[in-house]
């Protein structure tokens, strides 16, 4: 595609957005309540949110690079970039957020058969079905391959028994993509299968876990004699580990990229004021904020660089671990500084003034960043082994 065509596309996008993006959808996302997750039971926060999803889905722009037959718009990466940059310009919210778009979709496009793609992808694109991910299990943590949820072969179906933890929004999801053990006679990585099933299947139960942030985005999910038809197997039986790894890499890249937020120094300047030399009244905090913001700039460039390199044909490989590690640790650091900057005000937990402890809860939420999707320690192990090739790593 030539630049000329891209320019035309940009003009077209700009015009369409101006006409079709509701005003309400051009304000910053303040919290989870403003995110459109879709799904059977999703309650739209406003008419605008609903309309915005419908219009974008009709264009195929909820999943712009997916093929048109599966609900996408078949855009090139360059066109997608134009679309996203035009959306950013008017502060347009994302019309739809989901694990289906972010994780399952790419996996199905790569590993699914034609029936599976035709069945599931359009529903993801239109926000009709909300998915959750069934990976982690109690006592496994980062050691994903040691999973114990068992699928017993019953001819045309499996009977699944076991337990998952840290299943994000399992209580709100319609379907789950799930790792189960279909063979335990060989090594830990062999014998894992990647299956899909409806959360309304009898025997499935999701119990929210209360977190330190006071929120419950995760569940413990129990399976008791859950019947899963064999056609719901993605890829080959016993070889689900390949798909799981592929998805983990996706997850890492996603978690490393923190949502843009207000510069810390602005919050600090409001909270602390400037001294007679126009410097933050707390010179020590000032140091650390400058350091973190410079790191933030350089990390943003690194995300862009690694993406550009991978587009140029160099596989990102284990560098996704580097991005995940650095991005999540930096994000934690930034929120610590935000809390420092906000001082007493940031410590309020239940008050209108603090919007029910919005900052404090976000701060606590960041602590999970370096655990979910593989802990920081696991990422460092991966770098040691696959990039530095250190002995015994």
């Amino acid at each position, binding site marked *: 595609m030539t630049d000329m065509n891209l320019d035309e596309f940009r003009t077209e996008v700009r015009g369409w957005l101006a006409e079709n993006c509701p005003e309400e959808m051009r304000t910053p996302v303040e919290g989870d309540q403003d995110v459109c997750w879709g799904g059977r039971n999703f309650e739209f926060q406003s008419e605008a949110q609903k309309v915005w999803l419908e219009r974008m889905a009709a264009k195929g722009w909820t999943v712009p690079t997916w093929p048109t037959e599966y609900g996408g718009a078949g855009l090139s990466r360059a066109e997608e970039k134009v679309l996203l940059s035009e959306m950013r310009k008017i502060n347009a919210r994302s019309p739809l957020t989901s694990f289906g778009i972010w994780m399952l979709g790419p996996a199905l496009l790569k590993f699914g058969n034609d029936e599976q793609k035709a069945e599931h992808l359009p529903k993801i694109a239109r926000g009709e079905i909300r998915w959750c991910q069934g990976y*982690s299990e109690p*006592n*496994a*943590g*980062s*050691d994903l391959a*040691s999973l114990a949820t068992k699928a017993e072969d019953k001819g045309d179906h499996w009977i699944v028994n076991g337990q998952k*933890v*840290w299943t994000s929004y399992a209580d709100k999801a319609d379907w789950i993509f799930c790792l189960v053990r279909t063979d335990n006679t060989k090594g830990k990585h062999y014998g894992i299968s990647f299956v899909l099933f409806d959360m309304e299947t009898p025997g499935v139960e999701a119990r929210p*876990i*209360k*977190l*330190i942030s*006071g929120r419950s985005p*995760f569940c413990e999910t129990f399976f008791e004699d859950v019947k899963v038809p064999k056609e719901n197997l993605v890829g080959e039986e016993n070889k689900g580990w390949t798909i799981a790894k592929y998805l983990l890499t996706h997850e890492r890249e996603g978690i490393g990229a923190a949502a843009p937020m207000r510069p810390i120094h602005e919050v600090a300047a409001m*909270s*602390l004021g400037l001294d007679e030399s126009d410097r933050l009244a*707390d*010179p*020590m*905090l000032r140091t*650390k904020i400058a350091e973190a913001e410079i790191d933030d700039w350089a990390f943003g460039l690194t995300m862009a660089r690694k993406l550009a390199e991978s587009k140029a044909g160099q596989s990102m490989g284990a560098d996704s671990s580097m991005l995940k590690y650095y991005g999540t640790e930096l994000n*934690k650091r930034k929120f*610590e500084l935000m*809390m*420092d900057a*906000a*001082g*007493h*005000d*940031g*410590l*309020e*937990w*239940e*008050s209108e003034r603090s919007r029910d*402890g919005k900052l*404090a809860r976000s701060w*606590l939420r960041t*602590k*999970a960043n*370096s*655990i*979910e999707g593989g*802990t*920081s*320690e696991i990422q*460092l192990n991966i770098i040691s082994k696959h990039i530095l090739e250190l002995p015994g790593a």
Partner: protein
Amino acid sequence: MALVLNEDEVMLRDTAEGFFAEKAPVKALRTLRDTNDETGFDRALWSEMADMGFAGIAIGEDHGGVDMGFQAAGLLAEQMGKNLTASPFLSTAILAATALREAGSDAQKSEWLPKIASGETVMAVALDEGPKHNPAGIETTAEKSGNGFKLNGAKAMVVDGHVADQLIVAAKTDDGLAFFLVDPKAKGVEIERTIMVDAHNAARIDLNDVEVDGDALIGETNAEDALHKMLAAGRGIVAAELLGAGSEAFRSTVEYIKERKQFGVPVGSFQALQHRSSHLYSELEIARSAVLGALTALDAGDENANRYCSMAKAKLGEVAKLAALEGVQMHGGVGMTDEYDIGLFLKRVRVLQELLGDAAYHQNDYAKANKF
């Protein structure tokens, strides 16, 4: 300097250890939080603490206290930090008692100190106003008005402010900063309890043309020295509480990683975690010395005692924070759940480090004091 505890202190520590573990463990804080307890602490516990002499630990024997000094008070605070105990110990037995003892007239001392020591009266000191600790920036005013004063201003982060029987308000007068005794029910006083992330007490207090008598003034209208002594005591004691909280976060984390298995072995057998744990152990040992050094200096009347308390607060703010952060990370997924205690330590440490000045505040203060 007495960096090693003497026999009396060891006995006190052992007593306190048993007392708080039994009467006010972390579970007690959870109950207060989950039942939305209106008081925010257990009044019966506070009575018992008074009976044990804890409420009067920094009050002279002539006023009903046991006068064991701040080193001893630190031993209690450490145990409270370890158990996340909610009590008016800091607000009443340390801050209010020290303000009165240092600045008060004989009459004021005779009236109030025995009531503090007996546990009868809960007092709160209203000092800070903005989002950060800044005693030099107090803007609440006390104007002469008839025989007394008229107070105006807005206070924040007043520990135990919503349940205090009596407030001590720091305000500017024409002669300098002064402390005033204010009845929380007086006209013009508006108190809003602020539920905090750590489930401990704090309040915002507005003062609108609050009239007080002349004898509400604690001592004289220039109470800078008393203010600094009170701040030093408060910082030293909060540092001790941080030591307790940080040490317990560390201890429970080490215990957890010894048990928790991953990849078939205890996660505590991974050398990277071992080195981080050993580093943290070292920091906590250094931090313990800072607390001991600061509080013994305070008891000894060392001319640098106030400075040492500030330095100890700086060090403990950093070390306890590191202990809490490492604790949460090393707990992995369960560290994120409300079910495990480590998250409560993270929250409590965050509040304590902010209280009476965070590490950055005290590092800056150190530099100023040393003229650089």
